[in-house]
């Protein structure tokens, strides 16, 4: 295995492990101290998956991708779009409304990381933040992605995410 393959596999394995933690929390909700922990694993899984796919092309270096926690908003919809293309479906156009939802979810998942958009979106799944003088905590926050994942399209998003992780492992 060359160095690039090693990095791709390394990020893919971490994404898989993070997403398995999410999946276990889904099945055993009593194991979760707080919802923010569940969201943290989802955000980390998505970020590492995107980094694995970027590194696979051997244009960006590991140092490049490790300098940011971004990539989810931009690349996760592309990865999921390709997973839909892999499906043997003759109703691809009907997936358009799902892609819109996936893009919105990707945007919301990206800002779960506290370093992404502190000014416009201080809410995150790790640290307390100041909301106009009131200190809010992730422990008490209602995370929008969790709500989006529970409505139509959410289960498909999670299924495609799992397929994308398995594919690159």
């Amino acid at each position, binding site marked *: 295995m060359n160095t690039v393959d090693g990095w791709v596999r390394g990020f893919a394995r971490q994404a898989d492990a993070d997403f398995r933690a999410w999946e276990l929390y889904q099945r055993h909700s009593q194991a979760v101290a707080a919802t923010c922990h569940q969201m943290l694993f989802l955000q980390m899984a998505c970020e590492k998956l*995107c980094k694995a*796919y*970027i590194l*696979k*092309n051997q*244009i*960006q270096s590991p140092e490049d991708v490790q300098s940011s926690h*971004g*990539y989810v*908003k*931009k*690349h996760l*919809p*592309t*990865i999921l*779009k*390709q997973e*839909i*293309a*892999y*499906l*043997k479906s003759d109703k*691809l*156009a009907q*997936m*358009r409304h799902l*892609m*819109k939802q996936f*893009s919105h979810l990707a945007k919301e998942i990206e800002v779960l990381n506290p370093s992404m958009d502190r000014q416009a979106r201080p809410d995150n799944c790790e640290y307390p933040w100041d909301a106009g003088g009131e200190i809010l905590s992730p422990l008490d926050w209602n995370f929008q992605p969790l709500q989006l994942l529970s409505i139509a399209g959410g289960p498909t998003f999670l299924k495609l995410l799992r397929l994308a992780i398995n*594919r*690159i492992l």
Partner: protein
Amino acid sequence: MPNTMNAGEYNAETLQLAQKHYQIEEGITDIFHITDQFSVEIVRPIKLLEVNQNTVPSGIMPIQFGADPASGIPFPSVILEVTPEEFHEIKLGKLRLPNGWGIGERIPEPDLEAGE
């Protein structure tokens, strides 16, 4: 031109993959084949440049996918998504593609009314 497979098959698969993407993502306005004069892979991936109104700017950051013959995608693929503004910058040479890459032919949208 791919070097280990039938060129006709390669071109047909390129068209099919691009047209699937047109159908799935409504923000895509144009898809171009990316040419690569330095490609040395045994099986050349299908390379597509997709202009997507719904994506966000990130510069030139393509991502690569494996082949999945069971799903009807027999070749690896590389997808480079850019915003319309980024595409304009690529055409002006302000944003540069990786060495050896060039913008090839535009791939047409599927004719959905014809039942494709």
